[in-house]
């Protein structure tokens, strides 16, 4: 049992050790499901690398690397049902992909546009930029499900930095008080831009925050996808059964810089990064699958080629989508556009010539 009643302790829950050895009870997962996890982790890494490359070429805007956090982000989304909600930050793009947000929609958003086709039916809120603000939303979605009497769970995910924000703590308190069917997940990747985890909180773990709010918590090796999956599965099950919220801290690591606008070499010891590279979550599952003869070398190569092809297709599709119209930012201000804004829109259009080149997405700072 990964979820303790109140005190999450100091020892992270683990099923696979960094060498891919089974050190805990194997969850009931078919070989196909395990290969799906592996494929999605490879996809997440390749997608992150691709958008960063596009940003360097001026084809995408600022992007936060996903590398190193694939077990956490794929594993946390995998146990969710279609009717469950997911509210994330920009660091959980892989969770959105697993929940069904199309790659091309995400690529279009990283071109600097608002996707015209955000798939509301996936029950994923648009990834959040402002730190921690999505956690009250997740708890509110869960409170609504409880009020409505629906067997629906809401998952809110944020980073270690967000746990310092009022929103995070206030939401956790609400989750406890209202017995909300919510799972609040902290991806502790060690760094909030340049500020290390130990400067965020004097507490030995972030999972320990649950004690103060009366919310059961779990501390999990976030680079072990089986442990992540199994813990979140139990928490989702608990929530769906009416047993209330759970706080989960996933211990992982941000292998890249904070975003394409950041240079982690300014503040981070390369030796620390190397130590975590040795704990790469994709390699861990790969070793496990190889050892169990569930993944041949040829299959592995096929998966690598297949995810690249999938990303190629998504990028082609997103780049073929027309840019947003110059006056499109008036579209969704409110249900109807007040006369004053209609005038402003007409005013803008007087300054837009059809021949005017589209602004380039690459950031300038």
């Amino acid at each position, binding site marked *: 049992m990964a979820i303790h009643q109140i005190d999450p302790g100091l020892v992270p829950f683990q099923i696979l050790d960094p060498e891919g050895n089974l050190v805990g009870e194997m969850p009931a997962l078919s070989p196909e499901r395990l290969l799906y996890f592996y494929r999605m982790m490879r996809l997440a890494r390749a997608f992150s690398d691709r958008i960063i490359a596009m940003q360097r070429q001026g084809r995408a805007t600022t992007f936060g690397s996903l590398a190193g956090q694939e077990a956490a982000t794929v594993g946390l989304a995998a146990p969710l049902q279609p009717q469950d909600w997911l509210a994330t930050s920009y660091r959980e793009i892989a969770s959105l992909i697993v929940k069904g947000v199309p790659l091309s929609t995400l690529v279009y958003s990283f071109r*600097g546009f608002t996707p015209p086709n955000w798939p509301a039916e996936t029950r994923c809120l648009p990834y959040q930029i402002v730190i921690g603000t999505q956690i009250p939303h997740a708890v509110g979605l869960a409170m609504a499900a409880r009020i409505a009497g629906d067997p629906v769970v809401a998952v809110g995910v944020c980073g270690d930095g967000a746990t310092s924000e009022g929103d995070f703590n206030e939401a956790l308190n609400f989750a406890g008080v209202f017995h909300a069917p919510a799972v609040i997940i902290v991806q502790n990747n060690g760094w*909030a*831009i340049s500020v290390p985890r130990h400067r965020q909180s004097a507490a030995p773990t972030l999972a320990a925050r649950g004690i103060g709010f009366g919310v059961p918590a779990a501390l999990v090796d976030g680079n072990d996808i089986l442990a992540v999956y199994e813990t979140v599965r139990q928490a989702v099950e608990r929530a769906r059964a009416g047993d209330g919220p759970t706080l989960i801290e996933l211990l992982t690591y941000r292998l890249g810089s904070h975003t394409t606008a950041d240079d982690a070499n300014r*503040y981070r010891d390369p030796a620390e990064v190397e130590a975590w590279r040795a704990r790469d979550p994709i390699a861990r599952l790969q070793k496990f699958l190889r050892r169990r003869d569930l993944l041949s070398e040829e299959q592995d190569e096929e998966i690598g080629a297949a995810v690249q092809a999938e990303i190629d297709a998504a990028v082609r599709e997103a780049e073929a989508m027309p840019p947003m119209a110059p006056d499109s930012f008036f579209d969704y201000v409110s249900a109807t556009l007040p006369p004053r804004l209609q005038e*402003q829109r007409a005013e803008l259009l007087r300054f837009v010539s059809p021949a005017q080149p589209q602004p380039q997405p690459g950031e300038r*700072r």
Partner: protein
Amino acid sequence: MALRPMTMIEALNSALALELERDERVVLLGQDIGLNGGVFRVTDQLQRRFGERRVFDTPLAESAIIGTSVGMAVYGLRPIAEIQFAGFLFLCMSQLVTQAARMRFRSGGAFTCPLVVRSPYGGGVRTPELHSDSLEGVFLQTPGLKVVIPSNPYDAKGLLAAAVADPDPVLFLENIKLYRSFRQETPEEYYTVPLGKAKTVQAGEDVSLFAYGAMVPVALEAAQQAQQELGISVEVIDLRTVWPLDEEAIVSSVEKTGRAVVVHEAPRAGGIGAEVTAIINEHCLYSLLKPVARVTGYDTPYPVPGVEDYYLPTPAKVLAALRQVMEP
């Protein structure tokens, strides 16, 4: 004074270093301002020079950054807090608006809050959501708080020094696009540029053009085009302190020209432009030959990077407004 060409980043860094040198009470706090030197490097090397006791990273909590700064200011320190992007000021509105700005008021003058809050703002640099917003208009209804927005390195350094010397809280907004856009000869030494004083950047006779921050170069370009295309002489005034406004400078210019255009990238409704227009109405309505025109961001949320250029005032938009107010 020894002059050196500085970007606005370098000028601000120099101002902060001088404050730390000359006054033991000055402390710097914020996110990523220490070893990383701030996400824009405004505090580069300052932690190394002055130590972690005086220049320190905080947990990621805007409300606590401002709330604890209030406590430090009351104690007698001179905190200079950084909020990483102005869009995140929304996360500390309670502490900034209801506490920092009102400490003198609610204690009957027993306590004061000499605090400077620095924050980068402004668009055109392809940042993610809420990293480009201009919030100054929000603070027009925050009694007790001054709002300063420099448009060039020289003013940035002198105004920041004046903000630190001010006995009350000052919100110091730094335009991201101007951070590295040009260098200007700037003194190495300490000096101040007074708060509450606008600056006539270019004298003119026919129309007063008010701007601040990144809109000053936009206004100057439009003024030059107006001179060439319309043959008019435009007086360009950099407001520099946007709250409280330099009413005398606004009124004396409009009394001379009889025409006015206000430019800002913040939304139009209830903004600096509205307040400048009201000041003109109150003090020199009968000097006006045409209604005051505003060239501003629109009353929408700040758009995504792919269309943000359409949102911002441009020289063409300002020129059209100048043309409009020059109609007979």
